[in-house]
């Protein structure tokens, strides 16, 4: 870790001034990812601009048009256990609680969650080639131990996975990300927020330096009746997803009015396939139909030496999770498979 400055920002304007002083200045929220990156010498910050003192963005509010706005500085834990979220957006609550550990969720913020870096082993080791960390140096994961890596949307430059659970639910719910900067405000649709690696794997998302996430807006529709989050991983808690699935269904009897299916642990961003969701529209909620959707979602998936299992696993996980969404009470703690 290099020596860096620390500046607390109590006002939005001040936060922008401080962060714009140097391209290597960074916002500090919960610090659960950023501080690790500093310790591993993967990020060298000149100054950490602590945004926790900002007066706004710590709460959850309902907007006049029935949407719900999650403050960027609210912790993951306070979000997941908020009555409004538990009642109206239980999918989001479930997904958050499937992530990390209680201690980390108590520190981690909603804004920081969107910006956490990949968990690729090679990214975390400053002494080996990695295009994301050091563009042009090569990708060690492609010929290496790639069990945890992506099967969809990969490029010859990077096969890393975006590791968030929360964001899988946010993708399914069609959230938008609210952003402010010295230049003004903008909103980014969730689908446009995270990027695929392509030949620019060093860019995880489309946020610019100096832009602050102020909140995340959830549309009115929360799919609170039929939803499920399933997370498959190498231990029952405190491990990142090998494959996770968020399913949200709007049902009329056993007819599907609308389906949302997002995958985590398989790509450089939460993975949704519109054709698959369209396929389910107006169909009955059966295993067979979910299986057909699963095939479509995994179309084009490409495995590497150690992770080809994810293709079949993801298909099965989609089917199972859609079935679980028909009976949300069948969900287990830790987003384990139903009993």
């Amino acid at each position: 870790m290099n020596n860096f400055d620390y500046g607390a920002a109590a006002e939005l304007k001040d936060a922008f001034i401080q962060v714009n002083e140097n391209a290597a200045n960074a916002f500090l929220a919960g610090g659960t990812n950023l501080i690790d990156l500093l310790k591993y010498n993967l990020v060298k910050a000149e100054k950490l601009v602590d945004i926790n003192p900002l007066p706004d963005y710590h709460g959850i509010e309902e907007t006049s048009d029935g949407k719900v706005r999650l403050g960027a500085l609210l912790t993951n834990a306070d979000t997941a256990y908020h009555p409004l979220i538990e009642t109206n957006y239980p999918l989001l609550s479930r997904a958050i609680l499937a992530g990390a550990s209680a201690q980390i969720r108590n520190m981690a913020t909603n804004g920081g969650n969107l910006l956490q870096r990949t968990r690729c082993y090679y990214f975390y080791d400053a002494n080996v080639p990695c295009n994301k960390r050091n563009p042009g140096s090569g990708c060690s994961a492609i010929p290496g131990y790639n069990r945890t890596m992506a099967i969809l949307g990969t490029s010859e430059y990077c096969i890393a996975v975006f590791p968030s659970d929360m964001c899988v639910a946010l993708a399914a719910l069609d959230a938008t990300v609210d952003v402010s900067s010295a230049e003004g405000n903008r909103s980014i649709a969730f689908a446009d927020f995270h990027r695929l690696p392509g030949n620019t794997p060093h860019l995880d998302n489309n946020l610019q330096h100096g832009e602050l996430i102020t909140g995340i807006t959830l549309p009115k529709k929360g799919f609170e009746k039929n939803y499920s989050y399933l997370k498959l991983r190498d231990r029952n808690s405190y491990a990142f997803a090998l494959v996770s699935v968020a399913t949200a269904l709007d049902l009329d009897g056993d007819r599907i009015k609308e389906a949302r299916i997002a995958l985590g642990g398989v790509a450089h961003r939460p993975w949704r396939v519109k054709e698959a969701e369209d396929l389910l529209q107006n169909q009955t909620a059966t295993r067979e139909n979910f299986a057909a959707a699963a095939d479509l979602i995994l179309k084009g998936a490409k495995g590497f030496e150690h992770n080809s299992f994810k293709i079949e696993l993801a298909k099965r996980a989609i089917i199972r999770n859609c079935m679980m969404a028909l009976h949300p009470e069948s969900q287990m703690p830790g987003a384990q498979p139903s009993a």
Partner: protein
Amino acid sequence: MKNPPATGQSISRIEGPLKVTGAAKYSGEYNVPGLLYGYVVNSTITKGKIIKIYTEEIKALPGVIDVFSHENRPSTAWFDMKYADMDAPPGSPFRPLHDAEIRYNGQPIALIVAETFELARYAASIISVDYEKEIFDTDLRSHFGDGREPETGMASLLKPPPPEPTGYFETAYAAAKYKASGEFYHGTEHHNPMELFTTTTLYEGKGKLSIYDKTQGTVNCQLYVANVFGLRFKDVKVISPFVGGAFGSGLRPQYQLFLSVMAALELKRHVRVTLDRSQMFTFGHRPPTLQRTRFAADADGMVTALNHTAFAETSRFEDYTEVVVNWSPKLYPAAHTLLDYKLVPLDVFSPMDMRAPGGSTGMHAIESTLDELAYQLKMDPLDLRLKNYTMIDITVNLPYSSKELKECYLKGAEKFGWANRAPEPRSMKRGHKLVGYGMATGIWDAMQAPARAEAAMTRDGKLHVKSAVTDIGTGTFTVMTQIAADELGLPVADVIFSYGDSKLPFAPIQGGSMTTSTVGTAIRAAGKALRKKLLRVAKRMKDSPLGKAELEEVIFQNGYIILKDNPQAAVSFADIINDGHHGLPLKTTNTGVPNMAKLNKYSRAAHSAVFVEVEVDEELGVINVTRALTAVAAGKIINPKTSRSQILGSMVWGISKALREETILDNQLGKYMNQNLGEYHIPVHADIHDLDVMFIEENDEHINELGIKGLGEIGLVGVAPAITNAIFHATGKRLNQLPVHFDMLL
């Protein structure tokens, strides 16, 4: 009023409150004014040479005191032997900063000493090093063909090579009707105790050192430091009262000890060196091992032929060995046996003992193959083991000193409900889950080494007992206090046990499940000697009511010596010291040695039977160990509570070994990739369900006076095979690579 014996009681750890309140001080918590901090620079290449280390700009940083590397390190002992510790395998021990050669990835190549830890760490992150790289090999699986016989040495005493072949294995196997075989692979594992490896060396002037070290052997480290740095033995004190787990990683002096001492001597300052979590992956580990088995049985289920071969990784500089293949004929006396153990030297650090070394590796292969044989025979796996039950260890042709394994099988099976197991694989279901029952046997040698202990009675009637032994979290402190209390018939509260300091009477390294028998026997010897001394002094006292009583004619109880025939005739320990010994403590130091003449007539082992229930999600493969029961026969149980904790911990480890932990080795880079506890998966609470422990009474009159066998490893050996056997029962799939990844079941 007679107080019940302290041994056999469930007494909570005496030091427990210190630990949970944070008052217990660990080696990295001894703070003194002027302390300097060292941070280690590790090699980023796997093999080759250091061409240049750019130390000048580092030394120029304000607050950096010095940078040590092979270029400027002080000279240390020249001979390999001087670096050998009590657990050193045959070969040439690793010497930190010895020369420019890089032997493995992560090798310590420099020590930066600075005024703060943070500065030293920062300096380590910016130091540049030029290397000349060489081609390396770290992959066991592609090199097992290079396997060769291990060198033998002192280590072979505790780790005997495989017994000679008996009968005609190939012929017997070819002719047999019922056979089972398998190929098994276990990857690298790292110990990962919670406490990081830290040494705080206090420079006490003129080559005198007080060293707070994380270790499983204070005397071992004292010897090592004195030998390597040419210091007088008595000038080196190694202190380690609390150890936050070690699991074998503290059996050998680690490089932070060397570096901390080196810097302290050179700078004549107090120096602390702490290894961070990722640096804990830069010394010993459990070696990856490839095994092959072929077992045969006759139609009645008698095992007739056993072939077990292992290829294990070692470093290029030491022949680290384990007992992997010797176990099967000890349990299942076949006429035809062929056992072989080979080493494959690779470009890694030397492997190192890790809880149940060898046993947990070998027994997985053995018990899985036996399970498979049971299916071939259409026999219940438990019945197959009972059928082949033996009270004789055929590998040495001696009876077991005691063996209540049969009771472990029977009582364990009953409590677990083994009878409810439907024999066919995939025949038990619960909702979406396939349910499987599996069982396995565990065995571990019961060993003992010589040790010394001091016992002293003071004027307040308290017993002070001393031994250099450590307490690595196992409850040694408490258990030794209990043993000592019974020697003098005192309540535990009147015993003060001092330990974890090399200046105290000699104890060997704490490992191999032999601490309780080893140090316990020494304490017993000292206790007996102290009883004699107390009586002698008591009898000399004016008007002593004890008259001419011999030791057999008195009892020691509640702080008194009492005549057996006349309980009114009693003298208190306090009076003996105050009136008979001028108030001066009465002291004795004695040696406890294994009685080899007696022991050599027996084979000695602790045993266990493990029963496991798993649930496997039929669609997704996700595995949960829903229930596990271990029945243990390990001689006398001194403290059921701490003993149960030992077994529970082992069972959690067994679940970990079967389903969770693995060090990921990238063979193209020649390095470990998951060097942190986020990615090195040890079980979390959500992985652990119903665990049960049963101790089966076992009276062993031969093993040692206390009848103790030790519990450190026995709880682990049988768990992983019981789990994989249960997975087979649930799914019909035999998975021989550990850890099992659930996707192998898709």
